[in-house]
Structure formats: C-alpha cells, structure tokens
C-alpha cells in the first residue's frame, strides 16, 4: 500500500508539473521549439541553418532533431502524434505528398498547418560529356530506341523518379529507369553504366565545370541562380515542365494562429538575412520565401500534381 501511495503521489506531482507547463505558455514561445528534420544530406544541412536562424529571431532555442526513415513518413507520423502547440514543427518538403500517395502514411498534407516556405531545389538532367549535345539529340536517340535509354533514379517513387517521368513524358519517349540507391549518379554516368540521370545540380556542378559531365536542362521555370548556364525545359520548348523541390516549415493542424504567426515572422526575417543568402550560394539552393497562406496554396497545388503523376506511374496506393 505504501508503494502505491508513493507512486500515486509522484504521478500527481508530475501531472501538476506538466499541467503548469502548458498553462504558463500564454506567451509563445516560452520554451524550446523542436524542429523535426526528415532527411540527411542538403535537407539536413539547410534545416540546421534554418533552425539556427529562427532561434535568433524567435527568442527561443530551436532544436533540429533528425527523425529519418520511410521517405519522411517517420517524421510526419511523429508530428501528427504530437499536440498542436507550435513547439513541434517539421522541416517539410514535397515528401508530404509522396509519402501519402505512396501509401506510407494514412494522412495527407491537410494534417499539417503551413508556416512558411523557405527554399526550393531544382533537379537537373545530366549526361556524360560528349554523349548527347543537347536535349533534342537525347530525345531523338530515345525515340529511335524505345526503352533503351538508361536513366538513373534514387528509387521508385523518389522525387528524382517523378521528375524524370515528367521530363521524359514531355519529350514523349519511353526509357528504362535504373534504381541505384542514393547519390551515386555522377560516377555511374562517368563510367557509362547509365546514359542520363536526374539529380540536384550540386552533385554535377564540379564535373560539369571540369568538362566530364554536362547538365542539359533544369526543370524550374526560371534558370537556377547557381548554374545560370543551364537552360530550363521551358526555354527548350517543353512548356509544361515545372517541378521543383520546395522546403519549408509546418506544424500540426490546429496550432494556435499566433504561434504560427510568430514562427512565420522569424522565418521571414531569416529568409532575407545575409547569412541565409550566403548559405544558398554555397550549398546551392534557391531562396523562395512564401507566407503561410501562399505556402498552403503551393502545397495543395503540388499535391494534386504529384497524386496524378503517381497514379499514372502506377505508384499510387
């Protein structure tokens, strides 16, 4: 009996502590904010920078916490399971749509409240230097040899796969997709084991400069600031191609409006800071700040596009 009494008194004390915490939170933020990061690589590097930047403008510690796995599913699930307080935010991306349409999580983008978009990354199509002069030569070859052109992707249903599908649909050709896991595109191209690959420009830039690989086209409407020499698909006559990977901040739906506003304001200040601009040039991403309303529209529009595309590719579950 004594033990039961002890345990219950501890529980009561704990619940009081926890309770007082949530009541004290009338001024946001009154404690640290946890930012879930879904991926490694550039997503993580930029995420860590953004967390540091928010910290300065928000007046509270922002802790970036890695919750990788399942193409973002594990991290989204975590946020979905947390209270909608604004103390748990996620460094999100188009993966919010791919995880849902790919059947990895049972909830879609509407589970989250958009806060602000921060950046975009533009995939580019690259080939080995000397193999194809431009996109038309590549298209002509692929038309003559349907299903012969080997295109490297990170994996089925990955963003590089979806982008490739959009590009080659626009060219009107059938190709052979090779999944090779993450990040090996440059070597596979150099060795001639694959003919083309869609990846982030940072992976190709140095090889392009050295004349070993050639970036043929970018998939954004405007040219990429860090690689102004690469034409866009739209310039090359494929008007419908517009795919970019956006990254931004979101919280769980139902988070108090003023909490979202506070983070949004901090994000806005950081997005135009010299540090963020310098980082964008070094790491190779574009700054693209959108407020919560515009960001919400962007997510919804992208979700429709991605859902349709994955359905066409037979990846929708």
């Amino acid at each position, binding site marked *: 009996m004594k033990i039961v009494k002890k345990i219950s008194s501890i529980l009561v004390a704990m619940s009081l502590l926890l309770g007082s915490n949530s009541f004290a939170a009338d001024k946001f933020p009154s404690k640290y904010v946890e930012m879930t990061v879904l991926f*490694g*690589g*550039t997503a*993580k*590097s930029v995420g*860590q*920078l953004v967390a*540091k930047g928010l910290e300065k403008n928000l007046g509270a510690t922002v802790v*970036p*916490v*890695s*919750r*990788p*796995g*399942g*193409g973002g*599913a*594990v991290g989204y*699930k975590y946020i979905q399971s947390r209270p909608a307080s604004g103390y748990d935010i996620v460094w999100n991306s188009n993966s919010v749509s791919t995880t849902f349409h*790919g*059947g*990895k*999580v049972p909830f879609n983008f509407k589970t989250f409240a958009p806060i602000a978009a921060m950046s975009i990354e533009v995939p580019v199509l690259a080939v080995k230097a000397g193999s194809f002069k431009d996109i038309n030569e590549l298209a002509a070859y692929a038309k003559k040899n349907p299903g012969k052109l*080997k295109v490297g992707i*990170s*994996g*089925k*249903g*990955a963003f590089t796969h979806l982008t490739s599908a959009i590009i080659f649909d626009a060219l009107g050709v059938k190709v*052979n997709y*090779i*999944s*090779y*896991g*993450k*990040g*090996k595109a*440059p*070597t*596979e191209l*150099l*060795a001639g*084991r*694959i003919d083309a690959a869609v990846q982030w420009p*940072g*992976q190709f*830039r*140095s*090889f392009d*400069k*050295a004349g*070993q690989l050639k970036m043929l086209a970018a998939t954004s409407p405007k040219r990429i600031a860090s690689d102004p020499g690469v034409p866009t698909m739209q310039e090359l006559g494929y008007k419908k191609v517009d795919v970019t990977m956006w990254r931004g901040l979101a919280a769980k739906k139902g988070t108090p409006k003023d909490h979202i506003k506070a983070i949004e304001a901090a994000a806005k200040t950081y997005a135009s800071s010299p540090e963020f601009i310098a*980082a964008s040039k*070094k*790491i*190779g991403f574009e700054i693209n700040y959108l407020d919560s309303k515009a960001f919400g529209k962007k997510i919804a529009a992208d979700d429709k596009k991605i859902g349709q595309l994955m359905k066409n590719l037979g*990846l929708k579950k």
Partner: protein
Amino acid sequence: MIENLIAAFHMTATLEVFFAVCLGSFAGIIFGAIPGLTYSMALALMLPFTFTMEPATGISLLLATYIGGMTGGSISAILIGIPGTPSAAATVADGYALAKKGEASIALGAAVIVSTIGGLISLIIMILLVDFISKFAIKFGPAEIFMLVLFGFSTICGLAERSLFRGLVAGVLGLMLMTIGIDELEGVQRFTFGNVQMLQGVNLLVAMIGLFAVPHILEVFLQRINKEDKVNFDVGEVKTTLPGFQFIKKYFNLVLRCTGLGTSIGAIPGSGGPIAAFLAYSHAKNSEKDPKEKDTFGKGNIAGVVAPEAANNAVTGGAMVPLLSLGIPGDPATAIILGGLLIHGIVPGPMLFIENAPAVYSIYFAIVAAYIVVFIFQVNFIKYIVKILKVQPHHLACAILIMVVVGSYVIRNSFLDIYIMILMGLFGYFLNRIKIPITPVVLGLVLGEAIESNYRTAMSLSSGEISIFFSSIVSVLFFLLIILTIALQVKKRILEIRKQKNQFDKGAA
C-alpha cells in the same frame, strides 16, 4: 604545388585549428569508445558549431572527430567486448579475449599504434595516387560491388569458429533482419505490418548494440545472482605495459597489407570500414602459416586486433578519394563531413583539386595533425582506461545498460529503436545459449543492404542477364577469390572429419 602547400600550411598552422583538432580528437575518441554513442553522432553535434568558424578550423574539427572516433571504437571492443562502432566489430573476438587474459593494455596499445600507421600510410597513398584511385573507384559498378560484398561474406568461414553451419545460420539471420523496413529501390514496404515507425527498419547500430551489449549485461547479472562472480572476479594487477618496437617489427608486414586492403576498400563508394575490417581479419587468419598460431585466432591472438584496426583506419584515407574527387560520401560519417565542406564553400569534385588546391592540402594537414593528436591522447589514455577492468562487473554492467538505452534512442531519436535494441539483445542472448556466433549476424546486417541493392541494380542494368557479374576482370577476380575461399574451407572441414573418423576407428579397434 609548393605555394599551395605553403598556403595550406598557413591556413592550418593556427592556434584555433590546433584547439579544433584537440577537441575533435577527444570528442571522437569518447564517442567512439562508448557503446551506444557513435562518432557519426559526435559529427552531427559538432556540425552546427562549425558554421560560424573559419573553413580550416571547422573542417579540422570534423575530420579530427571522424579520425578519433574510428580509432576510439576499438577501446570498448577490447575492454568490454562491445564494439563502439561497426568497424570495430571484427576486433572484438581477439581483443576481448586478450583483455580477459589480462593483456588489455597490449591489445589497446597495438590497436592505437597500427591505427595510426594504417591511417597515415593510407593518407600518403591517397595523396600520391588520388587520380589513379578515383579512376579505379569508378570502375566499381553495382556488379563489381556485389561481388566484393559477396567476397566479404566468405569471411563467415573464418568467423564461424567451430561450426560452419552455425556461422551460416547466423549470417542468414542478419540478412533477414536487414530486409525489414522500406525498400529504397522499389519503394515497397517489407515486414512493417502497416506500422509507420517500422518503415525505418532495423538500424545496424541499434542491432549491434543490442546483440553485443545486452547478452553481456544479462550474463553478468546472472553470475551475480548465482554468486559466481565472487569466485571468479579477481582484479589483481591490471598491467599497463605497451607493445614495444619488437612488436611493430613483427607485424609491420601484416599492417602494410591490411593498410593496402583498407585504402582500396575505402576508395570504393558504398563499402567502408566494416567490410575492410572483416576481410583483414580473415586475411590475417588465412595467411598465418603456423597451425598452432592459427588456432589461437578468436582466443586472443594479437594479429586479430592488428589486422582489422590497421584496415579500418586505412579506410579513412581511402574514403577521402570518393569524397573529395567525386563528392560521394562512403558512409553516414563522411556524409556529415560532406555537409560541413559544402557549408564552407568547398565543393568536392574534380574541380576542387584545380580551383581550390590549398583547401585540399589543408584537409591533408588536418588529417595528419588529427592522427598525431589522437595517438598522443590514446597512448596516455590507456593507463587510465584499463582501470575500468577493476570496476566490479555488475557495476560496470549498470553503467553500460544506461548508455545502451540512451545510445539506441539518440541514433534516430526513436523510441522504437529502444525496443528493437532490447529485442535484439534477448535474441542475441538466445543465440549465445544455442551456440550460434553473433559476429556473422552483424556481418549479415552490415552487408545485407549493399548485397541486395547492388545485385538488383546490376540485374536491372543488364535487363536480367546474369552475365553482367562476369563481364569485367574485377568481378571475375572476386568470383575466383570466393571459389578459392570456399574450396579451402571445404578441404579443411573434410580433413577434420577424416581425422575424427580415424580417431574414432582407432578407438573402436
């Protein structure tokens, strides 16, 4: 070249860089040495601090952490039989056996010395041959890597101790565990039972912590309950002697060979430390001519520490090749270093050597400095760290228990990983009881993903033609090595059976 060297020297010969190297080495050793904390974690924690540093300082901090961690992993492998990092898993068998014999300081000293030699020689090889090695690395496509990994699997023969059958069972168990989670190539979910958390699969480190640490903890507690430890536990004098010059002379040849092996495997993107260490271990065992010496492998042969430790540190030099010349990180640790390089405006790739040569040389300097500092730290550290053996085993086990629970959580900030760690631990204990060795399970976990994804990528490249695995000299060469390993093993087992039969016949007569 000379002015680049001088410029690089000016960048690195500052007080800040010196402090960064010391701090990084120290943090790396500590994180590498504690089972459950990894140097990848130390790197991830350090990265945000480097944002505001000078490039040379920040990068030196990261590199020193990496090198300290790679070396530190052997400490817990030797002292308590739990590898601090996957690369140190091959060191456990002989290192821990030596510690039990009271030779911990010799084993630790040997590990530090050969780690430094291996790391520095691999760096020299890399500096001299970077062009050649990066061309060689490109030749390794999915088919070649598949064959290399398959060859790595043949080391099960050496790890299986008494029964090859049990070794193979263990290896296959490891492979099966690795299939849980999401399949990156097809985006398919496997054995997740509709649970979103399960999509993350079984993490190698989590499984390794569970498999090695939990059975150890259980054993110690059981002994305590049965009052066996009072009888067995005798602290005595913990020796702190270090291996001398004679030792280096004796094993120098082996160290050189393992360094070559480690450097070449490090240069191949997507393989890395554990394969190199396991291959080096089986090489040391197979190249031992004296049958009596050969028999002592797994029971405390110092060569079983020397070979994997030289090889896994040689990987650090090799891994710089794909990292710097191709921009391809070989493992999670180098991926974090890549992030650090990018933030400081150092973009790896062929142009790095042309446009930013001083940066490359400053990286070399930082690595050399890190090895020297790590060496000095560790040599002085051994005296104190071996004292850990004086702690009562059950006290130590309590500390380990806390570290492994915290450690398995922080790898991916996932509570599920704690449960997986405990499950894997109980599984490991069960395997111990039915005399199935643990190390091949880890080998299966380490190599499982690489063997599967490379096989499938190769098959899709060739549109399903198996001939792709025999279409290059490299892959055929590995195939022949595999055949040779298996043939030798079969021969050995047949001879053993005959010997036993003869003895049995004699006994019957």
